[in-house]
Every structure is written in C-alpha cells, then in structure tokens.
C-alpha cells in the first residue's frame, strides 16, 4: 500500500494536526496550515481527524497510486488531474492502481490537501506525524517529499471491494461538501483579528493604517509565516520586548514595520510586538492567501472571535456526521 511521488512541486510535506505539548522544549507545533481542508479531506477518505495527509504547495506535484485507494483532495484548487481527466475536489474519489495524479496549475488558494484512506503511515515522533523541516524530524524521513519517495499507507477505512466497477482511472462520488459550507476563501480576503497585547503601543496612525489598508502578500511567505507589505507600522516609542509565547495567527511587527502573520511552523517564542491576532475561525482563509494577492484586516471583539469559532466548530461537527452518514449510505464505510 503506497503512493509514489513523481514530482514534489514547490513543497509537499506530510502533516497531521501538529505536535502539541512540547512547546516548553522549544519544539514547534507544525501541522497542516489549513486545518479545515485537512480535517475534511480526512473525513472524506474515511479517516479520523488525526490522520496524516499530504500538504501540497501550489503546482507541479505528481504522484502515482500503487494500489487501489480511496482519496480526497481539498483546499486550494491546483487543477487536480488523474490520467488526463479533471478530478472533482471536496469529495471521496476512488483511484485505481497505477493511476497518476498531477496538480497542473493554481486556480485559487495556495495549498491542496491529499488524504488517503488509512492515512499516510509514517512513524509518529513525539506524538505526531507532522514534518518539522528545520529539526529534520517527523513526516517522511524528517524532510520535504522528493521524487521517488514511496509513502506507506495505513489500513484503508473505506471498503475497496465496494468501489463501483468501471474502466476509468478513478471514480468520484456524486456528492461533495457544499460550497456554502467552505470557508470564505478568496483572492483578496478580509481577515478578522482581535487586538494584540501591544496594540496600544502602536501609534494611532499605525493602528488605523493596520485596519484600513490592504497588505500585499509577499513571495517570502511560507509555512512559518505570511510576510506582508504595506504602510509601515510604528511603535509610539520604540523599545525592546522580552521574548514570550506566540500563537497560530499572531500578527507581529518587526523593526521594519511590515507585518508577519505567524503560521504553522512559527517558533515557540517571539520578541516582536504583537499588534493583533487572527481569529481562529479565519485561519483556514489566511492559510490559503496567495503570494501576489492582498489581504485586509477587520477588527472584531474577543467575544465575537469566540462565538465565531464555536459556530465554525459546530458546523464542522455536523459536516463530519453528514460525511459519515453518506459514506455508510453508499456502503463504503
């Protein structure tokens, strides 16, 4: 049971939902950037939340399935094609042994997720299968995927023998996650934030500029953080801050005045002032922001951030139940 990588593209890694509990040792969380897409991909492939899947950045990825598999592709639309035929996203897809998946070109978003029934079966390191690139641990041999890698796959959770017969390379079910339930992905999204710990330390002008300007997403953005460019944001009186913990979505302002939104591969501690924090409900949208695009920040209250998060999680819970039922109805699970 395995998947053979033909071309990794810009960056492809094995990720689960991250390595928590080791922050006090300086070990970063890692994990999927877009957790909505990662979790739903797993559910569609019959897996639980914690299974490892592939996170594929932009285009240029190609891989071959060495067995019959149930898979699901979610996240950014990179024009997935199997043996020359477009594959629909956000739904279970049965792929035949020997078929070849190619992500041709980015249409929207930045990262696609490929989940396979049974999960990518690499060893857990400190309770997680996520790749920690800088430390060289987790994932597939602690590194980004390369051509020729053979990824082991765990015991399938969806019945391969139940798969519909046919000659094609793949078969996609007729139902999918409705568009209306997807995060508000977009080319120039508005990202909701709450005030950061050092919000008041910034000049009034900088605070206004932060909420009223649009910021360019630079090509220097990566899994560690989104580096933005826009109006320079300045402290009322520049000073040094003691390093302290940061979180997924922390917006920090280094000395050059240009915001960095910290993402999955952020360090555990940071010493730059924190102007804001992206609300959890908008992290999937943030994670699909594309270099070359723009984002704008909108302020919400901490209470609103909490209720939006709870609403989002309830939606996901219903979605998970819905997917389970559909898979049962179709006799795959």
């Amino acid at each position, binding site marked *: 049971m395995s998947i053979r990588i033909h071309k990794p593209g810009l960056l492809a890694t094995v990720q689960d939902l991250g390595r*928590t*509990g*080791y*922050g*006090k*040792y*300086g*070990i*970063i969380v890692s994990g999927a950037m877009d957790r909505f897409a990662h979790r739903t991909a797993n559910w569609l492939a019959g897996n639980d939340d914690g299974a490892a899947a592939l996170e594929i950045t932009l285009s240029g990825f190609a891989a071959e399935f060495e067995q019959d598999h149930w898979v699901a592709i979610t996240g950014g639309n990179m024009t997935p094609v199997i043996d020359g035929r477009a594959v629909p996203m956000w739904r279970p897809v049965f792929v035949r042994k020997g078929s070849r998946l190619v992500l041709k070109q980015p249409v929207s978003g930045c990262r696609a997720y490929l989940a396979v029934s049974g999960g990518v079966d690499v060893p857990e*390191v*400190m309770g997680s299968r996520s790749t920690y690139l*800088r*430390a*060289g*641990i987790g994932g597939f041999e602690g590194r980004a995927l390369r051509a020729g890698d053979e990824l082991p796959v765990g015991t399938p959770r969806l019945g391969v023998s139940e798969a519909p017969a046919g000659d094609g390379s793949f078969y996609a079910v007729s139902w999918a996650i409705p568009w209306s339930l997807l995060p508000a992905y977009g080319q120039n999204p508005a990202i909701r934030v*709450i005030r950061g*710990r050092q919000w008041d330390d910034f000049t009034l002008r900088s605070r206004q500029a932060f909420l009223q300007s649009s910021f360019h997403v630079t090509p220097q953005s990566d899994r560690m953080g989104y580096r933005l460019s826009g109006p320079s944001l300045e402290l009322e009186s520049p000073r040094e801050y*003691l*390093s*302290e*913990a*940061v*979180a*997924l*979505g*922390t917006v920090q302002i280094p000395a050059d005045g240009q915001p960095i939104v910290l993402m999955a591969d952020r*360090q*555990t*501690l940071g010493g730059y002032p*924190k102007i804001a*924090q*992206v*609300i*959890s409900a908008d992290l999937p949208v943030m994670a699909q922001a594309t270099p070359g695009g723009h984002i704008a920040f909108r302020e919400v209250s*901490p*209470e609103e*951030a*909490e209720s939006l*998060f*709870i609403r989002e*999680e309830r939606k996901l819970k219903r979605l998970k139940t819905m997917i389970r039922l559909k898979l049962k109805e179709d006799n795959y699970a």
Partner: protein
Amino acid sequence: MAWSFYPLGDSAVLVEFGSGISEKIHQEIRAAVRGIESRPFSGFVECVPAFTTLCVYYDLMGLRLTGRKMTAFEHVCSLLRDMEKSAAQDKEVLSAEVIDIPVCYGGEFGPDLGLVAELNGLSEEEVVSIHAGEQYLVYAIGFAPGFPYLGGMPGTIAAPRKKTPRLRIPAGSVGIAGTQTGIYPIETPGGWQIIGRTPLALFRPDQLPPTLLQGGDYIRFRPIGLEEYRRLRGIQP
C-alpha cells in the same frame, strides 16, 4: 506580584508574573507550570514559559463552560486564578543541580573568539575563563528545539551580533549576542558570535524529555581540548 492575564487570540491566555528578568519570577513561573501540569483543567493543551510570562493554550471546545455568562477567556482566567492561590503555597525546594557543558573553545569551533576578546580588550584565554567561570540559569527554551535562553553572563565579554548572519551555524555552537550567551542545538542560520562548540547533543528527539536542558536548570561551561571533544562526540547517542 499578582498574576495578570492577557488574551493571546481566542485559544490562549498569556499570564504575566512581573516586568523584569529575575530568578524569583522564574521560580514563580516554574511553580505555576508544575501546578497546571499536575492538575490540568478540561480543555488544557499545553503551557509555554518565557522570562516573565507563561502562555496557557486551550481548546475552546474542550472547556467545560458553565451556563453562566462567561467567555472562554474569563473561564480559563478564573481557573488560573484558583491555581494562583495554591501556587503561592508551593514551597518546593528545587534541586540546584548544575549541568556540566564541555566546550572546545576557539579555533575552528569558535571562529569569533578572537573578535570577542579584541572587542573587550581581553586575551582569548581571559574570555574563556570568564565565560566558563560563571553559573547560568536556563530561563526558557525557545528559538530552536532545546535552545536555552541563559541568564548570568558577565558584561565584560559582551559582543554585538554579526551584521550579516552566517547561513550555517553547526549544532553545538556556543555563541554570544549582546550580554546573552547560548548554544545552538541544531544547524541554523544565525548572527551570534561563535566562541566554541560542545560535543553534547542538546536536541534528542527520540528521548523524553527531548532536550538536554530544560527551564530551571543551571549550567556551567567546562573548557575541553580537541581530543576530549572528539572522544565525547564519539560516545554520543
């Protein structure tokens, strides 16, 4: 000083214990970590200490929010306030074991030792003897897996960061940046002045804990020769 609470987004509380770096605040933070980890509340994910703060991460959906009109942030703050009371009673005397860090100073392993000496009007031997003559407290671990933020380096051997960071600093390198000293656990780019290298592995992903040093440890650097470096390197796991 009473704990102050700040939201770090909608899934973490940052607890501040005071405003300056001190051993007293550090011990209070350590006691708080022990308290929280020994009796984790429902929804607790992990906590990450730093110099004057402790960050408590939680899973909003895992919290047992009561019917009262209380936000998740307020709920976690109230749980932490209860812990503050019991933490005040935690008078456990911490072991004051000092961990020995052998370092081969200068030469190929410490290309900036000469510069640090020159900047401070000292000989290389004097820099080594000052650096190795102190005991350092590990205030926090961060920046890289197992990287210790150390306190206690004498200002007499301080040196500014390099203007252009090196692209590759080998694992085990011991450096100085301003009045801080530290050890690089993994190969990374970095701007610190490198004065030596330890043969010890600071990051041990297959062990628990996965790092040689932890917050609260005391360390002392011990100068060694190239031969001992090679011998110790050879018996490393």
